[in-house]
């Protein structure tokens, strides 16, 4: 580990608003150490260097505003640190020997990572990133839940971005399955994510997970901070799974970063023409990302083997019309427990999400019968609402 003073200066430097990884790297290359940078900011050497670089390259290496902040840091570095302490965060720096190996693959690696929760989680084996759109379809949400549940059974820690949509579904499914999860947020810890995820955040911490950020606690997330955050998600995951990504989705950025890091990327394909998966299909066409064809195949490709029973041999036939319906293998015993009409409705839902009208049309049952069957399944917890449709849950979602 670096000597304490240099480490503190390093954290203070990285916590300076406007001073990002690139600027930090250049400053360090010029001045040698974080302490020297701060000293230089105080005595004007940084100003001189800035003018010099501007002359030779035509562009200053650091904005005037950031330079002002840097001077403020130099005059009272402790102030920058105090904020992190007050939030009860632990901090890792790229100087530390025990810095997550996965993040070192980034160039440059994030100078500082602030962690709420268990920092050791970043060192666990089997981290997989599960990302996707903020506006998933019921099918996408269901797929995320299924994949996460299966991964957790194999001892995987799920990494995602704590956004609404697939991210949230992935975190929530992890907690539900008794797993641990890492949330990489786009702002500081004082601005963690949408209000709707308040309970989810508490759950992540309570179950031994972590919420991490490269920003000091006060940073307000902006449009630009999210793409940067995605490189951390990509680096933390040994593999990345993309569930649904429209064109220009942030999930595509995560996937591309993962591919740059030569990490495997699995993309759930969609129907041609669906907006929700247009970006995912483009990814499959234009990059070496691999299609996700089933849960068993995913586990096999990852080389992870479940602690539970072997499943590969009892895979169900792919359901009609379902998009990449991964292994509905274990639902038969659950279905057998149901009454006749409930079973008919449940069987239809196992094949894919459906609204009430589709259920009536597809099962041929009377609307009154379908309605009471759905209520029954809802009460059992075997079906859950997702947007305008219903999806299977509990023992039916295997």
């Amino acid at each position, binding site marked *: 580990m670096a000597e304490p003073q240099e480490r503190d200066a390093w954290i203070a430097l990285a916590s300076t608003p406007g001073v990002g990884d690139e600027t930090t790297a250049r400053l360090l290359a010029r001045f040698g150490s974080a302490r020297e940078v701060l000293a230089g900011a105080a005595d004007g050497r940084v100003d001189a260097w800035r003018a010099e670089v501007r002359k030779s390259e035509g562009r200053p290496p650091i904005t005037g505003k950031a330079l002002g902040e840097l001077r403020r840091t130099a005059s009272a570095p402790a102030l920058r640190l105090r904020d992190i302490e007050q939030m009860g965060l632990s901090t890792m720096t790229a100087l530390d020997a025990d810095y997550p190996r996965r993040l070192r693959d980034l160039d440059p690696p994030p100078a500082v990572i602030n962690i709420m929760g268990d920092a050791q989680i970043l060192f666990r084996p089997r981290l997989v990133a599960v990302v996707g759109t*903020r*506006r998933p*379809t*019921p*099918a996408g949400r269901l797929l995320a839940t299924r994949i996460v549940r299966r991964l957790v059974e194999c001892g995987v820690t799920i990494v995602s971005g704590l956004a*609404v949509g697939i991210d949230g579904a992935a975190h929530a499914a992890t907690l539900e399955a008794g797993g641990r999860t890492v949330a990489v947020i786009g702002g500081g810890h004082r601005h963690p994510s949408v209000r*709707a995820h308040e309970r989810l955040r508490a759950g992540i911490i309570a179950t031994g997970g972590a919420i991490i950020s490269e920003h000091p606690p006060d940073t307000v997330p902006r449009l630009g901070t999210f793409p940067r955050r995605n490189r951390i998600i990509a680096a933390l995951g040994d593999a990345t799974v993309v569930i649904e990504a*429209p064109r220009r989705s942030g999930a595509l950025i995560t996937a591309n970063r993962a591919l740059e890091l030569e990490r495997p990327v699995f993309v759930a394909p969609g129907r041609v023409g*669906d*907006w*929700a998966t247009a970006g995912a299909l483009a990814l499959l066409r234009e990059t070496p990302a691999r299609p996700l064809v089933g849960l068993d195949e995913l586990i096999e490709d990852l080389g992870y083997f479940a602690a539970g029973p072997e499943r590969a041999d009892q895979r169900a036939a792919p359901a009609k019309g379902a998009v990449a319906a991964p292994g509905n293998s274990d639902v038969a015993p659950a279905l057998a427990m149901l009454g006749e009409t409930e079973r008919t409705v449940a069987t239809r839902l196992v094949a894919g*999400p459906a*609204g*009430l*009208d*589709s*259920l*009536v*049309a597809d099962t041929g049952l*009377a*609307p*009154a*019968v*379908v*309605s*009471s*069957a*759905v*209520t*029954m399944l809802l*009460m059992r917890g075997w079906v859950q*609402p*997702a*947007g*305008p*449709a*219903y999806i299977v849950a509990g023992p039916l979602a295997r």
Partner: protein
Amino acid sequence: MLATLVTAVINGLRGELVRVEIDVAPGLPACHIVGLPDAALSEARERVRGAIRNAGFDYPASRITVNLAPADIRKRGAAYDLAIAVGILVASRQIRRGNGSWALLGELSLSGTVEAVPGVLPMVATLARQGYRRVVVPHANEAEARLVNGVEAIGVEGLDDAARLVAGPRGRTAGRAARRPAVELSRPSVPPPTTGRPSSSALTAPLEPVDLADIRGQQHARWALEVALAGGHNLLLVGPPGAGKTLLARTIPGLLPPLDDDEALEVTVIASVAGELRDDGLRRDRPFRAPHHTSSYVALVGGGPQLLPGEATRAHRGVLFLDELAEFDRPALDALREPLEEGILTIARAHGRVRYPARFQLVAAMNPCRCGNFGDPQRRCRCSTGEPERYVRRVSGPLLDRFDMQIAMARLPPAQLLDDARLETSAVVRERICKARAVALVRNVGRANAHLPAAAVQELCALTPAAGRALADWAERNHASGRSIHRVMRVARTIADLAATVQVDVADILAAAQLRDPQANPDERLAA
């Protein structure tokens, strides 16, 4: 000479007796109307003078004083014209009063013809209660006036007809007493169609009725509509544009059971006061009102200078259909909460206060968000983050809570849309609805299932023991309030009535729980 006659005024939906005293005395020619007249009534002076002259009588060159008593009631409208004119003729000795005793209602035109006025039915009913058995009404209002028992209502076309009636067969009508023909400069070159009612204002233009058999798919929503209409339950349809919400609502007129006698009279009285009753007599069709979402507060709730009934009252005993619920004025929507609960609307203004009945069934349709695609797997929602939430928040929680049934509708897949299989016709479904309603009315002593009082729900819903357990189980899992438990029981009762079973069973309870679809509840939907 002094002449007195009787006419009536509308106050809310009730008529009130008004005495008209006319004094024709020597003096400078003038006409004064006293007794709280409004603007339309003050102008009666001019109409009456023109009408008397052009009907062939003489307008007396004397001092005419018209007093309307009682003086504390505000007199509105032009229904007194006829009484004033006839009174002047009698007071100026141009006609002599015959044996009969007449009350008179009607507006005059300058040519002396008698024009229709709104509210004839309740006004005649009031006159009858007060012992007036013979009433002269405008010809166009004759049919509705005759709905009142024990009254001889005679429709007249002109002031001269009215004068002859009052004078009696042996009475004297003075002077030339012949109508002066008007010089008609504008006249239609083809005769106007005589059949059919004149259509109401553009805001309330009736929707073309649609038969259920013409609607493809949407079997769940069709069934839900059937349950709603059979039990009088308020229904909310939520779905993207093109899902068929409006089309489904347009089948409602063809599915509603006819009005019974008492209801028909109530509905006819309202139509009469609203000025929507013309040549037709008793209204037997349940009202179906579909005001546009730009309708103002007053249009929806009622009010204005004349304190007229709004759409909510005009939909009394029928269905008020609000398409694009979230686009309506929020204060106007919230004003509907009271009538939804009480069946009565009280309109209080500085110049008066009226109570209108408004026991309507509310059927509403709305999109899940501004662009309509929220939650649709095929089409992308173009709303920004948080916008769908703001959109549904425009309908207040308490109003949403008044919907017993909330249904999510989705766009039909093209294959179903082109499917030729014809489903049941409106006539078949209507028969089931009528039967279920009849059964419920007998059991509930005249109430629809939706209006069962909380105290009677337990007894009248007659749950089987198993159904009771299922309901308790459901309530516990969903943290259901007492109100929502009762709601499920009422809807379950209707489902059982449609199946013609005496007791409510487990399947009915579960199906009823589903009809308040959490998927359709915009609040819960957003949380998912």
